[in-house]
């Protein structure tokens, strides 16, 4: 028998299918992958170190930049962690608005995933449609927060200002329009023979392996494990809303696709419930030590002006201790771990990024498969390198 030779090739650091700067060293036997080694860190910016030199309020914009397609989710995780550390309870209206924006962001994030994932597989049309729908969501963000990609809208203790007039109408329009759109995508893809051949039985991850590799989010649920932080340990009033957690069976690329498609429908359902039941009331917690005052008060009242500068420059003192708060981001369980020494800056801020753990299971999914399946599998775990490298 002839001696078997393998060839090593690099996929990346710049490759359209790696969705960012990621290099994967592939050891190939013909077209079969014998060994895959992801090499990351090309985008490392030291955000955890930066946070140690900033006050708690100043850290919020850093969180936007980690997963730049799911900025609201990161904002939410961080402010909830600080609020947990402080023991601050925020008003219901603010919590509902947060849920609404986080769910809209989940839809936007999944739309980017859908467009780029099927583009990798050769379908060029859906990305145009997906960006059109995402634009509608970004328009809502622009109206509400002023920013599109990096909204930085959540504050410790609530929201900086209430929803502007007309924002809720924009959300209503989107909610009404979206089911028709998502049916269109499904009609294009789900029954498509080429799409099915490329995705069914590809990149299989069993439930035991998924748990063992700390995989979370749609990638874990695609493998048949019904674990969703929104249901398991509800935060920000998720228990008030009626929604289901879709679960796959086989753990292949196709199941992950189906899970995310259904998740978009469920997110739309949550947004619909928020706009129907949005209560009136304040949008900031009654905690003057930590909450920034209203801008109108800053211009007219000296005590508000002093408080504004004091919180802006010095921040606030925190109890000594440590908290871990996780939220269900679009990629999986996103955790913020804050160690406080009682000062106005985090002593240690640690981000448990879902993409990091999900990527670590990639070699398990693709070893023994064809090189074209690497493309399909990377797309299906929906990684964002900004979050992996931090």
């Amino acid at each position: 028998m002839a001696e078997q030779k393998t060839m090593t090739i690099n996929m990346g650091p710049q490759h359209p299918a790696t969705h960012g700067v990621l290099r994967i060293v592939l050891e190939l036997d013909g077209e079969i992958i014998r060994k895959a080694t992801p090499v990351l860190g090309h985008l490392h910016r030291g955000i955890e170190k930066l946070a140690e030199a900033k006050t708690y309020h100043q850290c919020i914009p850093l969180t936007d930049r980690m997963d730049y397609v799911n900025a609201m989710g990161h904002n939410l995780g961080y402010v909830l962690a600080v609020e947990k550390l402080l023991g601050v309870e925020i008003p219901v209206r603010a919590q509902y608005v947060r849920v609404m924006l986080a769910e809209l962001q989940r839809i936007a994030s999944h739309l980017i995933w859908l467009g780029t994932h099927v583009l990798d597989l050769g379908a060029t049309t859906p990305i145009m449609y997906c960006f059109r729908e995402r634009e509608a969501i970004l328009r809502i963000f622009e109206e509400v927060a002023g920013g599109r990609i990096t909204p930085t809208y959540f504050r410790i203790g609530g929201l900086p200002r209430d929803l502007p007039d007309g924002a809720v109408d924009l959300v209503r329009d989107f909610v009404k329009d979206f089911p028709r759109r998502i049916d269109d995508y499904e009609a294009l893809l789900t029954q498509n023979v080429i799409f099915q051949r490329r995705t069914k039985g590809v990149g299989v991850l069993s439930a035991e392996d998924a748990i063992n590799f700390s995989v979370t989010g749609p990638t874990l649920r695609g493998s048949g494990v019904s674990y969703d932080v929104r249901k398991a340990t509800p935060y920000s009033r998720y228990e008030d809303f009626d929604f289901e957690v879709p679960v796959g069976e086989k753990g292949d690329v196709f199941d992950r696709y189906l899970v995310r498609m259904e998740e978009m429908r469920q997110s739309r359902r949550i947004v619909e419930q928020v706009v129907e039941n949005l209560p009136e009331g304040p949008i900031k917690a009654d905690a003057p030590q930590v909450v920034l005052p209203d801008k109108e008060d800053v211009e007219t009242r000296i005590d508000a002006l002093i408080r504004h500068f004091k919180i802006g420059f010095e921040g606030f003192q925190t109890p000594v201790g440590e908290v871990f708060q996780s939220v269900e981001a679009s990629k999986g369980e996103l955790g913020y771990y804050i160690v406080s020494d009682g000062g106005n800056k985090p002593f240690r801020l640690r981000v448990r990024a879902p993409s990091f753990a999900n990527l670590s299971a990639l070699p398990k999914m693709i070893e023994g498969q064809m090189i074209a399946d690497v493309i399909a599998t990377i797309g299906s775990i929906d990684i964002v390198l900004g979050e992996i490298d931090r």
Partner: protein
Amino acid sequence: MAEREVIKRMRERFPSELLDYRVFRDEVTLVVRRDSLCKIMEYLHDDLAFDLLTDLCGVDRFTEHPRFEVVYHLYSIKRNDRVRVKVPVDEGETVPTVETVWKGANWYERETFDMLGIAFENHSNLKRILLWDEFDGHPLRKDFPTEGRDFENPVLPDT
């Protein structure tokens, strides 16, 4: 009160290995001894069903002794319960790897090694993960320079 249950079980099973425990904001923290970490983690995984290693990271408490803490966040999907395990470790000491219990620990331990310079015993591939191999120092240490002469002249890889 599932959370108190963890403390009770641990106190019965590991009276001398469990150094300390506390509850802050409803979160349980167990501080355990470094040399019996594997045994404790296997017990938590197998008997108490903490099947998901949510997170693993390190904390640098510079000027204190022991200097570092390695922090494990565990979650049980079956029982919907969380626990935090901490291991105090001093400079130059190593921590046994928990890769044998959770494969996901592989990358987390590499990251902790990269950022804080804590070595893990018996790890299958203890290399830097976020920074390049020639990088000098461990950035998340409190005494790592963030400005000044050393900062202006970083060690760059050969290209």
